[in-house]
């Protein structure tokens, strides 16, 4: 029994630890308004407060805290990207994640499971080797491995030759992890709230007020609040909110669906991804198989479920794990992926002064939560975009200086 739980057993009254203070009124003005109370917004608030002493901050969300893509992603964390810019960025995130439970005093259940990206074609093998080589050169653990080693790491995976797409090799990324996604947002929010940051749920932003090209206030359904600076962190609605601020983003929003099985006793240790079969799966701490596939075939601002997603995904799951036929899907859901042309995020400056962007998170937003929060906070506090974010600037698209990460996407597109 961990010591932390003893007080609960011996206290007659529940020793509540108020992570999220009760709702309060909006003030007239804040130094910083963060639009979007997902993981990213909460993390930015946390680092503003803890590392830069900026606590006059309001985080606004149209729904509940962490209720957008933070709640809907499949909680995979990895740094095995393709471009040096991408690898460096996500590697910093993995480093922060590893320490996050203790830093936040909140167990995010960070679980290093190892991450296997299967290659079923020789072109996929080449891409995996490319990623492995770039990773290793930058000090990130990754290796191209073959049947024997794959079988050792995941003995239940079907590695036979008599299937439609035999497994030829895999990119093995030992630091690949999963975490409790909600806890990441809550932990950051609780940490920020302890320093006085305000969280306003069910407070939709309806307009951005500018004066002379500079943001001065944010209009909400609960009234207008003045602000010095704004961070926009609204994955799934990025292009809509940016339009309120008066600029366009090179983003298409496409639903991405996922599902979980009923809880099962643990049998699957690593995270398994197959690009060719459009399937990825890990087993959560609750015992559920968390599964996803490719993005939907068309753009949509919506989170409806579809049947064909499940049909296709399950057919592929059975190709990887034929013994799962009698296991059952418990629940399916969808998130909205803000897809950029180069499969990399967009962070930093916008055409509006003091209006900072944290967008374009496609299917890779959760894993970047700590680094993005920390570096966005630094950006706002110093007024300067740090080097690690520079490659992801919005202007890279007009400059043809993209950060091509399509080859490192787990999800088919």
């Amino acid at each position: 029994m961990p010591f932390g739980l003893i007080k609960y057993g011996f206290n007659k009254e529940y020793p509540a630890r108020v992570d999220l203070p009760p709702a309060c009124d909006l003030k007239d003005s804040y130094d910083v308004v963060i639009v979007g109370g997902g993981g990213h917004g909460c993390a930015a608030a946390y680092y503003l407060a803890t590392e830069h002493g900026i606590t006059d901050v309001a985080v606004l969300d149209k729904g509940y805290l962490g209720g957008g893509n933070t709640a809907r992603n499949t909680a995979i964390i990895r740094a095995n990207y393709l471009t040096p810019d991408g690898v460096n960025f996500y590697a910093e995130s993995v480093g922060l994640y590893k320490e996050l439970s203790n830093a936040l005093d909140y167990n995010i259940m960070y679980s290093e499971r190892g991450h296997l990206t299967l290659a079923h074609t020789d072109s996929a093998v080449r891409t995996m080797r490319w990623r492995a080589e770039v990773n290793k050169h930058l000090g990130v653990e990754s290796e191209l491995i073959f049947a024997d080693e794959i079988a050792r790491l995941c003995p239940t995976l079907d590695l036979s030759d008599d299937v439609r797409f035999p497994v030829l090799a895999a990119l093995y990324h030992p630091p690949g992890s999963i975490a409790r996604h909600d806890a990441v947002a809550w932990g950051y929010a609780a940490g920020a709230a302890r320093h006085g940051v305000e969280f306003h749920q069910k407070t939709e932003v309806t307009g951005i007020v500018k004066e002379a090209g500079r943001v001065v206030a944010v209009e909400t359904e609960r009234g207008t609040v003045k602000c010095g600076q704004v961070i926009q962190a609204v994955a799934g609605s990025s292009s809509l909110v940016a339009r309120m601020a008066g600029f366009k983003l090179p983003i298409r929003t496409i639903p991405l669906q996922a599902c979980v099985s009923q809880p099962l006793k643990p049998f699957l240790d690593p995270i398994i991804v197959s690009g060719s079969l459009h399937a990825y799966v890990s087993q959560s701490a609750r015992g559920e198989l968390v599964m996803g596939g490719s993005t939907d075939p068309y753009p949509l601002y919506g989170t409806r479920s579809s049947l064909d997603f499940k049909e296709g995904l399950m057919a592929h799951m059975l190709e990887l794990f034929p013994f799962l036929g009698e296991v059952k899907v418990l629940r399916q859901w969808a998130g909205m992926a803000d897809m950029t042309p180069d499969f990399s995020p967009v962070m930093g400056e916008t055409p509006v002064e003091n209006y900072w962007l944290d967008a374009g998170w496609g299917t890779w937003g959760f894993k970047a939560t700590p680094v993005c929060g920390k570096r966005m906070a630094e950006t706002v506090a110093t007024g300067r975009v740090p080097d690690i974010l520079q490659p992801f600037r919005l202007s890279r698209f007009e400059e043809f200086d993209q950060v091509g990460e399509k080859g490192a996407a787990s999800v088919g597109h």
Partner: protein
Amino acid sequence: MTMRLANGAGSLIDREKPVAFTFEGQTIEGLEGDTVASALLANDIWTLSRSFKYHRPRGPLTMAGHDANTLVQLPDEPNVLADRLPIASGLTVKGQNYAGSLARDRRSLIGTVGGFLPVGFYYRSFYKPRGAWKVWEPIVRDFAGLGRVNVDSRHGYYDKQYLFADLAVVGGGPAGLSATLEASRAGLEVILIDEMPAIGGALNFARFVNGHADGLADAVGSDPNIQVLSGATCTGWFADNWLAVVRGNRFYKLRAKQVAVATGAIEQPMVFRNNDLPGVVVGSAAQRLIRLYGVKPGTRAVVVAANADGYGVALDLHDAGVDVAALVDLRHDASPCHFSDQVRDAGIRVVAGHAVSEAHGRDRVTGVTVAAIVGEGDCAPSGERIDCDLLCVSVGYAPAAGLICHTGIKLGYDGDTHMFTAGGTLRDGLMASGSVTGAHALEAALAQGRRAGWAAAKALGANPGAEPAVPNDLGNRGVNHPWPIFPHPKGRDFIDFDEDLTVRDIKNAIADGYSEIELVKRFSTVGMGPSQGRHSALNTARLTAKATGRDVAKVGTTTVRPPLLPEKFAALAGRAFTPERLTPMHYRHKDLGATMMVAGSWWRPAFYGDPASREETIREEALAVRNGVGLIDVSTLGGLEVRGPDAAEFLNRVYTFAYTKQPVGRSRYVLMTDRTGAIVDDGVACRLHDNHFYVTATTGGVDAVYRQMLWWNAQWRLDVDVANVTAAYAGINIAGPYARAVLAPLCDLDLGAEAFPYMGVRTGTVAGVPARLLRVGFVGELGYEIHVPSSCGEVVWDALMAAGAEHGIRPFGVEAQRLLRLEKGHIIVGQDSDGLTHPYEAGMAWAIGRKKPFFVGGRSIEIQMKRGLARKLVGFTLVDPNAPIPEECHLVVRGKEIPGRVTSCSYSPTLEKVIGLAYVAPDQAEIGSEFDIKVDGGRLVKAVVVPLPFYDPDNQRQAM
């Protein structure tokens, strides 16, 4: 001890047909028609499994297949609902989630330390000191999960069927049946979906005052316009009335013009201490046991009622010979209901204004404490203990509104009836009727059903007559008790049986700040278990409302998502049809012993021989082409017909080169870039006529190219037509110094170097088959690409093989082709380019028509070139011939910097050295420049830039 009733009750069982199966190793006798749960209860076995967190014993709660208390384990299937699974001879069933034995689960000790495991305890602990979680996590993981997967099992046969209907009615209770009949009468084709083996719903098990619904099920069963799917579960509603229906090993996908939801209501538990003990059931569970399975639910019962249904349950128990010790009515001043007199006449003791504050027993209820209600949710501290082995609870319902919620509709809450609400016409083509709308009175449910059937007919243009009237009184008052929640100071007052969550857990989650209903759910996990909150959502909403000082309506509900009931992976997968494309000569390759490889959806020969002899075979095949003659199946190459007066203009826009002045009878290289200027495909364009090009594309790229062409053509509206004819043609490339000698006797064309020069295109016959012949040089030798109708591919292949025998002709595969083209320095799109490569980087400036005004990507390339090159593709060889051969995608490194990577690399048997293509920094791209390649093990290998092509730099051999 058998609990089977002697009075002949049990509409689903066949008393003549005993069936034996095993549960936990013990042989159990049941009857045909029994479920595992009913057969076990008939044998007085109540503990089926153990709970998720505290390992408390779990027994049936609803007998309706709605709760997760009955999840059991089959040898090859975890998490099976025992109150749905029919028994079968030889079936082997076990409980789940226990250590040791089901009866004595060692892990049940954890329940005794429940006080140390507050809501969300795993967020509060296990991570200190640093690294502690690594120790705790495996333990936590091992405790989690329910059933076990058998990794050696293979799933059975599952398939799918499409269904279509004017009206799909979901739910075969009174409302559903009357909707079905009414619509059928108006001429609609109706499909009725019902979960139970026999339609009728509550008519088959509940107690009604009189039989208004007699004959309804029979009428439906004998109507030819009605297709009845019983024993089938509609698991999801998707856009445009697309329903998922699971029945046995068949998965139906049903498109309905109209959908009538008549899914009924789910009877809700009451909250008190030990309310999860086996033997505590909802009232309708007892009725189902008696009427469907002929099982006496207990010997001595207490009934808790807050509505008339509870009185009916008491009477049913009484009639079945159960001693009803007390009927505890939560209401102080309940007005008499239609069963009140009968209850009094039966001599059943009624205790009004009381509740059960606690159930007693270890593995089964042995008694209850009945205490006076002194305030909302508050019982007097002491009460009367009554012995019993069954406690039935009838305190209200929640609508089984899952399908309605799948459409995006959120449930409301009616503060007068204390019910979640969803009713009437919900959206176009979707209606609800019966108790899912709150219509608990039989007459109202029947009338609503009739009106739903009528409305469906009306919406579809039939003439259904006058609109059926629906009574104002739906019978929704006095059904739900406003607050059937009696927290106990000592806890174990469960809100959610799936997750072992008590009243305190919900309150504490809110106290920690998780006060929005979604956060209550996510933090506490209430409603996240296998039954998805069917029995916990209502009471959770009530508790949250009270704790946060809001109305239940304001608190709202969390999102209901498909599936309504868990769906098997194998059912969703069906027969898992994965398309495979075979070229017309596929079986020739197999006969020749080819090792096949995946190429998109195609299979192609990698080389002809055993995988063990791979390197040697590839080398031999390549040398055969260089020194003799070889042939390769290129049928997988994309083929596109581009016809029309604007055909050349069209190509001029979609490809980088210039095509307007391309002569008829000539082919020209095509390179496609996207709007960012990145290379996406290549091939050749053959001009067969002024208005007609035959364009090839890569195997993997053709579908996207075709799609892009259609897309652009829709924008530009040129007078051109594009067709993808990939599958219509077999393609064979014959190459090598003897290619002409082999082909000439089979072909009616003059193959002379002047009559049919390099890059020429001709139509003629080969082996009597009409053919398109292209003189192209991908492998760098004299060669002809022969395109013939697919059906004739084998004929032409055989003729070439026969004619080539004297020249030692040899088929070669994709691997040899890759080597040969590398020797010629030709790129493979996707291997030697990536998603951002523009033509200048790939050294393909020559393929850009600079004089034309526009092509897709042209402007982007121009802008990028103004900045100068960031990298360049070069040919290289190794400085040290004995150095390890770099693999494709090994990096070109310069200190920490990564200027590029090796894209192609191989030992060339013709040139007798290692050759390759690599991206390097522009300042490394000069001929003679040296650069480092980081190979396996981190070793650096020095390479030197050499001119391309490596082989036959003057291109004499292909032009022979």
